[in-house]
């Protein structure tokens, strides 16, 4: 006979406010098999868990029902508590009477009735629970980092540091990501390249790290500890092993009219190119859309000049398959498209640039070799206007609802650098609020205002209209002095909102991870598990999880690496015991389940059976590999005779819950 303990949590007033917990406990005490039913203020607290432990020991309980918050929050806590008292952890059931009852109903009577019904359903389910032990599955001691920006590099280095092999997959010809394009970094103003390139070189030289540049992930199969990933190495028409990065081919290439993405299209590059001097791997890449040889078969200059014969026009995409134990997503961010913001005249005035373009204009390796000139007529700009929150904090379909977090700091940095290098240039910054939280951030911003007297004007820019004489009229409102300003500017810099990289959405589908409506990866728990995704074995590093600056990105990169190392250092991981199992006597061997199993966990064998009519017969029956099965349950419905059932969510358990609810 079952001996079940019911514990109803007050959760302070979260539940007790709209659910009469005493009545729930009293009502559930009459349920079948319930021997003890009590309520307590905080079940998840230390004393709450002790309540469970003592009750299990004292009443020799065979099942525990906790009516509290969502199982997604404290199911493990209560399971561990029961386990430490000697009860199999999978004999504990949670009734969600907070998120799905007390918080969403105002009327106490109906909320209490609903809580009682949800409690009854949990008791009905626990009556049919069977003790389960988690199986083991091996862990492949290798990690995959998708994305080669600072986040990916930092994570890879930390994992390699722990002695595990790491593969970095970067879709650009070189690792480095957005940070490589940045000139100086806040708040210390040290040059981005100076702190990034050593890390890139370290990553290249580390024997545990292999870099797959100009490659993409094309397919992911398997599950935590045992992912099988297919990497597509895009054809770069240059043999990586031979090319020494001398750059001779890039000088001789006749096709010089290719817009240079690295400089945001502000200048041109040749068809065969090396993105920037410190590129890692320092290997040339041929752009098939522009190379005359590849497009119409005439030219071949680069293969002639190449001393080591590294050019190979016949190269095709190669696919490699590799097994990994953990995957870290570091796909980074991109500025949003500004074509919908015609009030800032970005699309038809060359002197209206985004902040990233300004980074390139000011960078020594940039289009004008470091001197800041107006892109239109290459003259020295005397007045520059910065516009904050372009596309951020917008509640309309054009922009993003969230604040992009890094624009206030990098605009202060730009303003300070310009004022320092060109004291004669006036700098205006139109802001809604300046948000500079963090160590030395506000002091940095105040220095920009006080020492370099950058004009910070509270008010938004309404209209930017280029005038005939090349100047730009910026019409903005100054809320503090309550007037409308017209500034005659030479350049306008827009602090553009940032969004996740376009490759993130298909990748999420492959990895079966969740994404929010803005395409940022959803973390397992916003406060308690920020660097893991809800899918076990997949970790999030850097801006793919949300807008963040370099210090935070590096912090999160190392955190993701720590989590990945925590997984890889185990020889085997306990896997989900709620897996399917087949009742061989009832199995027809019709392989309907095998066809619907997404993980291929079901195999067939011929076994001898004593048939009901006392003859023995060889029958083809299914058997589920508990290590591979993830417990989705598709097979249990495909199986007509109900031979296939799922531990923890069996047919009879769910039917018992349905009965309890419809009682």
């Amino acid at each position: 006979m079952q001996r079940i303990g019911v514990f109803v949590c007050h959760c302070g007033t979260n539940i007790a406010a709209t659910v009469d917990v005493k009545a729930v406990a009293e009502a559930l005490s009459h349920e079948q098999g319930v021997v003890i039913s009590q309520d307590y203020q905080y079940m998840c607290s230390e004393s709450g868990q002790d309540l469970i432990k003592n009750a299990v020991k004292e009443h020799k309980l065979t099942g525990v029902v906790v009516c509290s918050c969502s199982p997604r929050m404290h199911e493990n806590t209560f399971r561990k508590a029961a386990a430490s008292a000697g009860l199999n952890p999978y004999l504990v059931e949670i009734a969600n009477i907070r998120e799905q009852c007390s918080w969403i109903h105002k009327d106490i009577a109906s909320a209490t009735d609903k809580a009682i019904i949800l409690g009854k359903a949990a008791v009905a389910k626990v009556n049919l629970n069977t003790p389960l032990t988690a199986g083991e599955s091996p862990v492949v001691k290798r990690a995959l980092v998708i994305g080669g920006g600072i986040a990916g590099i930092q994570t890879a280095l930390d994992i390699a540091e722990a002695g595990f092999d790491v593969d970095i997959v970067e879709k650009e010809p070189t690792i480095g990501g957005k940070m490589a394009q940045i000139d100086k970094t806040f708040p210390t103003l040290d040059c981005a390249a100076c702190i990034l390139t050593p890390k890139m070189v370290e990553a290249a030289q580390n024997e545990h790290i292999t870099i797959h540049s100009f490659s993409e992930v094309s397919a992911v199969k398997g599950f935590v500890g045992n992912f099988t990933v297919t990497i597509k190495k895009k054809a770069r028409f240059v043999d990586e092993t031979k090319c020494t990065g001398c750059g001779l081919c890039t000088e001789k290439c006749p096709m010089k009219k290719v817009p240079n993405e690295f400089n945001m299209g502000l200048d041109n590059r040749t068809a065969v190119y090396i993105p920037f001097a410190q590129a890692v791997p320092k290997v040339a890449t041929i752009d098939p859309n522009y190379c005359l040889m590849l497009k119409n078969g005439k030219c071949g200059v680069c293969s002639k000049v190449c001393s080591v014969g590294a050019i190979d026009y016949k190269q095709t995409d190669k696919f490699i398959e590799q097994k990994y134990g953990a995957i870290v997503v570091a796909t980074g961010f991109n500025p949003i498209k500004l074509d919908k913001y015609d009030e800032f005249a970005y699309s038809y005035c060359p002197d209206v640039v985004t902040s990233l373009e300004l980074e390139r204009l000011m960078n020594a390796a940039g289009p004008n070799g470091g001197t800041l000139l107006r892109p239109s007529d290459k003259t020295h700009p005397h007045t520059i206007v910065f516009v904050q929150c372009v596309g951020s904090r917008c509640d309309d379909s054009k922009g993003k609802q969230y604040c992009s977090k890094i624009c206030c700091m990098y605009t202060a940095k730009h303003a300070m650098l310009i004022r320092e290098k060109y004291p004669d240039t006036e700098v205006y910054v139109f802001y809604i609020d300046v948000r500079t939280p963090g160590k030395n951030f506000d002091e940095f911003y105040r220095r920009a205002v006080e020492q370099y007297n950058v004009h910070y004007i509270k008010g938004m820019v309404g209209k930017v209209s280029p005038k005939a004489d090349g100047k730009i009229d910026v019409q903005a409102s100054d809320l503090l002095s309550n007037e409308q300003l017209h500034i005659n500017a030479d350049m306008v810099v827009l602090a553009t909102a940032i969004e996740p990289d376009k490759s993130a959405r298909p990748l999420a589908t492959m990895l079966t991870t969740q994404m929010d409506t803005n395409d940022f990866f959803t973390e397992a728990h916003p406060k308690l598990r920020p660097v893991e995704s809800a899918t076990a074995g997949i970790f999030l590093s850097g801006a793919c999880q949300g807008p963040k600056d370099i210090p935070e990105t590096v912090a999160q990169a190392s955190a993701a690496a720590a989590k990945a190392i925590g997984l890889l250092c185990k020889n085997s991981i306990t896997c989900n015991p709620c897996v399917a199992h087949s009742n061989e006597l009832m199995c027809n061997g019709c392989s309907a389940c095998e066809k619907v199993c997404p993980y291929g966990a079901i195999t067939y064998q011929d076994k001898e059976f004593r048939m009901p009519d006392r003859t023995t017969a060889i029958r083809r029956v299914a058997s589920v590999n508990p290590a591979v099965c993830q417990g989705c349950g598709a097979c249990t419905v495909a199986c007509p005779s109900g031979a296939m059932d799922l531990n923890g969510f069996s047919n009879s358990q769910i039917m018992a819950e349905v009965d309890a609810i419809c009682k």
Partner: protein
Amino acid sequence: MLKISADKLNSLFDAISAKQTLYITVDNEKGSAEYKKYESGMTLSKSLNTVRSAKDFFFPQTENLADFKVEGKNIEVIDVREESEDFVVFGVRACDARSFTILDKVFLSEPVDSYYKNRREHSTIITMACTKPAETCFCTAFGMDPTVPEGDVAVFSDGENYFFLERTEKGKKFIASISDMLEDGDTAKLNEVQEKARNIMKKLPLANLSTKSFGGERLMKHFNSEKWAELSESCLGCGTCTFVCPTCQCYDIRDFNTGHGIKRFRCWDSCMYSDFTKMAHGNSRNSQLERFRQRFMHKLVYFPANNNGEFGCVGCGRCLSKCPVSMNIVKVMKALEDKE
């Protein structure tokens, strides 16, 4: 003998149904007959017999035996039996009428089945003589004269009017209650119709089916006959023959959890099912051969052994036409006959 003209039959039905509920045989749109509660305007069925036999009136396919009220841990038993109201069944054929006597032997002998008894006492069976038997009929093989059926009141038709003859005490009372609508009539034309029917009976293909090589004493011989393998190989074990058969009387008792209590009900069970008489160790007859043999041995050997020679089959022919693979009792009898 008392009679009523054919065209006034419906008004007779109206009179009867005014006093107590009346069920008559009606042809449905699919061309087969069934028993239906009489509403004025219904016409009596022309076809020979119904698909579902009349046993349903006394031994319904599903019947609630008791209810249990469950409140948390205490259970309360509620007796759901209530007195059945009087009813009349019109149009029962001779074979079905004989099946009631067989069922009475089972249900009314000690310990008496109160549910069955309650309905049986409140019923009045009006049988109709057969004039156009089908080729599948073989009731004569079991000592029945279809032209003079049993039941409480026998009704004979000579084409224009219907003659009523009481056969039991209850029938006498019934005829008395409707005697004002009947008048006396000579039975000359009727005897001629009966004579014609009788010699058709003789010409039936299964007329000379004999039952003398069956009965209680030949149990071991038939049980060990090696013909069962061949006979039972095509049987699908579906249970149609048992559910259309008027004399099958096996039932299963089950509990149904309605959410706020338990309903204990009994329902027809078929010896052909794989879970018939399933016990702790499993089913004692676990091959289709044993189940097939059990069905026909019960009809032809076990029942006569326990009921001094009365066979369990009434030769209505339903299992002949309704079996999906056309295996039936006639083929079994012909296969197991002692060939002198």
